[in-house]
Structures are given as structure tokens and as C-alpha cells.
């Protein structure tokens, strides 16, 4: 880059007043100062996360066990989705730097093209994060279960589909012999949490009781996350023994043995603070991405209207670019400390 920044200027002139000693414009310098303060915010959040994790009494969730789903394809793809999100954000950072480069050549068409690409990348990322949140909140089909010996386990495997409930004891609405085929999973999970399932018989909302018809689970593995009387931390229980332990606990008829998904109070992945930090840090980052997309759109309108072309330079694109790269930069750290380490 040829310009003031690389030119040799003697110190007396640089610091003698009337000239920017950093050879940058006011706006760009302030953008850098803002980014440093924002970086301290995110740094503080991640350090706080590290603090809590260091202190956590229960097993901290492992990234590739927690985030192993892809849209439309289901489970069994550890980290692929976040890797894809990271890639999308890196690519949108690249298109942004290309827009800045085009601006340096006063190539209005080029700037427009690359800005649009950046905005599309940003929307993709925000959408991906929405999906990730939905999935995180919704949780797995198995949930986290408290086994008979007091230990807690997460479950990997393929959940056998629930086919129907056959009513065995009439209630307010359902008559004996009715076959219920709607909203099965939802009803099932609610009843499991409330402890309304005993020995394969589910108690429905209207007080009727029904027998659950369900296909067998495949590749069932319980991973112990909190030790109990019998099972040790990180122990893996497989297949038929896993099924016996899991369903004994799930169908025990006691409430709150199982946790599905996540909210601010509890989650199926690990300690309470894990969920809180996940929501706060990825949420705060997502909010930054969203604002970045909005700012990019505003600047794109300026580019299309020719505001910056008339001004003689595209420095505004460069300043927004700084912010956008910063968002990418933060994600690089969030990716490492939330998903990898």
C-alpha cells in the first residue's frame, strides 16, 4: 500500500502538530479505539467463561458431543456445522476486504458487488446461528437422564420413532382403544419430565392412560457426566445395558429425572452456567453480526447512490470493513473456546 502510512516522515514533523501522527483519519482512528474497547468486552466475557469452567464442579460439556447435528441430516456430524459457519464468516470477511480493495481503485461496480456478497454471507451466518440456537434450546431426543444409582448421563445414538399411543384406560376425552398419532414426541417428552410414564404406560393430559408403541433405538450409548454409586465419570454404557438403564430411569414415574434442551436455569449438556454463557456470548456476538449486516446495508446504499464516489474516496467502506473483520475475529475466538477446547 502506497500512502502516508508507509512514507518516511521525521519525528519532529509528525509530532510537531497540525498533522496526524498516525497518518489516519479521525474516523478510522476512532473505529480502532471502539474496536479495542469492544475487544476488551469480549475478552472479559471469554475470561469469565474460563473462570467458571475452571471452577465447575460437574463435567463440562465437550464440543463435538454437544454440537453434532446438521440441518435436514440429523445427528452424527461432530462440529461440521460450526465449521461451516466459521467458513461462511471467513468468506464474508474476504469479500469485505475485496470491496475495500475495489474502493481503492474507485471501482464502484466492484465495491457494490463485493458488499452485496458480504451482506449475503452475514445473513447466512445469522440464520445459521438462529438454527443453532433453536437446536440448542430444543435439545436432543434423549435428553440428559438421572440413572437409578444417582449418576447423570447424556445419550448418543438414534432414537427409535414413536409410532402411536394406544389408550388402555379412558379419560375425559380419549376412549379405551383409541390410537393417538399426533404430537407424539412432544407429549412423550412432557410426560417424561413430569414423571407421567411408568413401565411403558403414559398418562395423558386428560387423565387417560395409554401404551407406548415405539421402535427400538439404535447404537444407544450412555456417557456418564456425573458419577453415581455404580457408574464412574466418563464411563460409557452400551446397547442393551444402556437401554435397560435409560428406560428404567425414564419410565420410573418420578418427575425431573430427565432434562430436554436448554434454558437459563438448566440444560442437558452440562452445568447451568454453560447454558448461560452459551446464550450470552454467542448471543452478544450474533447481535454484533446483525448490527454489522445492517451497517453494511446502509453503506451499500451509499455506494449505490454514489455518495462515496462523489467524495473521491471509499474510506467509509474501509471503516465498516474494520468492524466486519472484527466480528469475524471475535468468532475465531468463540469458535475455539466454545466448540474446540
Amino acid at each position, binding site marked *: 500500500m502506497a500512502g502516508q502510512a508507509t512514507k518516511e516522515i521525521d519525528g519532529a514533523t509528525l509530532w510537531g502538530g497540525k498533522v496526524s501522527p498516525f497518518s489516519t483519519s479521525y474516523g478510522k482512528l476512532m473505529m480502532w479505539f471502539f474496536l479495542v474497547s469492544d475487544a476488551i468486552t469480549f475478552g472479559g466475557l471469554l475470561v469469565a467463561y474460563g473462570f467458571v469452567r475452571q471452577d465447575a464442579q460437574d463435567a463440562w460439556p465437550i464440543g463435538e458431543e454437544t454440537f453434532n447435528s446438521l440441518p435436514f441430516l440429523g445427528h452424527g456430524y461432530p462440529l461440521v456445522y460450526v465449521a461451516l459457519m466459521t467458513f461462511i464468516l471467513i468468506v464474508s470477511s474476504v469479500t469485505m476486504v475485496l470491496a475495500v480493495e475495489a474502493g481503492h481503485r474507485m471501482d464502484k461496480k466492484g465495491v457494490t458487488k463485493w458488499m452485496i456478497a458480504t451482506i449475503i454471507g452475514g445473513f447466512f451466518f445469522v440464520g445459521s446461528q438462529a438454527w443453532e440456537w433453536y437446536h440448542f434450546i430444543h435439545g436432543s431426543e434423549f435428553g440428559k437422564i438421572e440413572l437409578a444409582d444417582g449418576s447423570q448421563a447424556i445419550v448418543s445414538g438414534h432414537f427409535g420413532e414413536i409410532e402411536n399411543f394406544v389408550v388402555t384406560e379412558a379419560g375425559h376425552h380419549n376412549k379405551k382403544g383409541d390410537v393417538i398419532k399426533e404430537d407424539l414426541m412432544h407429549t412423550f417428552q412432557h410426560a417424561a419430565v413430569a414423571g407421567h410414564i411408568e413401565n411403558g404406560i403414559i398418562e395423558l393430559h386428560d387423565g387417560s392412560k395409554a401404551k407406548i408403541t415405539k421402535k427400538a433405538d439404535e447404537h444407544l450409548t450412555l456417557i456418564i457426566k456425573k458419577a453415581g454409586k455404580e457408574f464412574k465419570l466418563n464411563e460409557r454404557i452400551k446397547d442393551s445395558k444402556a437401554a435397560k438403564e435409560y428406560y428404567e430411569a425414564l419410565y420410573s414415574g418420578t418427575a425431573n429425572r430427565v432434562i430436554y434442551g436448554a434454558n437459563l436455569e438448566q440444560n442437558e449438556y452440562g452445568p447451568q452456567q454453560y447454558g448461560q454463557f452459551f446464550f450470552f456470548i454467542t448471543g452478544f456476538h450474533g447481535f454484533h453480526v446483525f448490527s454489522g449486516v445492517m451497517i453494511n446495508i446502509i453503506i451499500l446504499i451509499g455506494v449505490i447512490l454514489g455518495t462515496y464516489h462523489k467524495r473521491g474516496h471509499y474510506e467509509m467502506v474501509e471503516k465498516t470493513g474494520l468492524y466486519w473483520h472484527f466480528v469475524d475475529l471475535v468468532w475465531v475466538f468463540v469458535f*475455539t473456546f466454545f466448540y474446540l477446547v
Partner: protein
Amino acid sequence: MLRDDVIEYSLDVHHSEEAGRKIRTKILKVTVLLTAITAIEVLLGVYIKQGTLLWPFVKWTFIALTLLKAGYIVLIFMHLGDERKSLKYIILVPYFLFMLYLIFIAFMEALAVGEAWATYGG
């Protein structure tokens, strides 16, 4: 009247076609590198499990690769590497000093609190 309160600077905002071509090649190289690093990180994360012998090594590799990625983003994409030295260090040095101190103090504190939990229970 000649004003003496106006700070002068020339914006570093133009370059030639030829310089542009060079910069684009550099951007492409960095893109490939960042993608490759991310791919390596994911593969390491998937194939080397936490709690194994190799894990501490992998963990520090992740952190080193992250800092490398961050360096490329800040110095190349954000053009901090092209700025005047005074600006570069006024951004980087205070931040690093502050963060290293924060990390140090937080983990020392976490160790002490962890010990307290272990000794006195919850």
C-alpha cells in the same frame, strides 16, 4: 486567514490496478490459509478426544492456531500491518498487556476458588 487548528493527513485510500492485483493475490493466499487452519482444527477436534494423552498438546495447538488466524485477520484483512508503527503498537500493546493480566488474575483466582470448593464443599 490561515487556520492553525486543522489537522492535515492524506488518506491512504487509493492504489493502482497493478497494486490491486498484488493485493488480491495476497488476499487469496490468506483465505486459503485461514480455511486450511479451520479444517485442521475441526479434524483435530473430531479425531482426538478430550482426556487422551495427546489432548493437552492439541489444546495448545488450538490456541496457537487461533492466535495465528487472529494475526492474519488483524494484520492483513484489517490492514493494521500497513499502518504506521505508532498506530499499530498503540492498538496492540495496551490490549495485550491488559488481556494477559486479566487472564492471569482470573485463572489464579479460579484455582483458589476451586480449592475452596474442594475443601469446604458446596
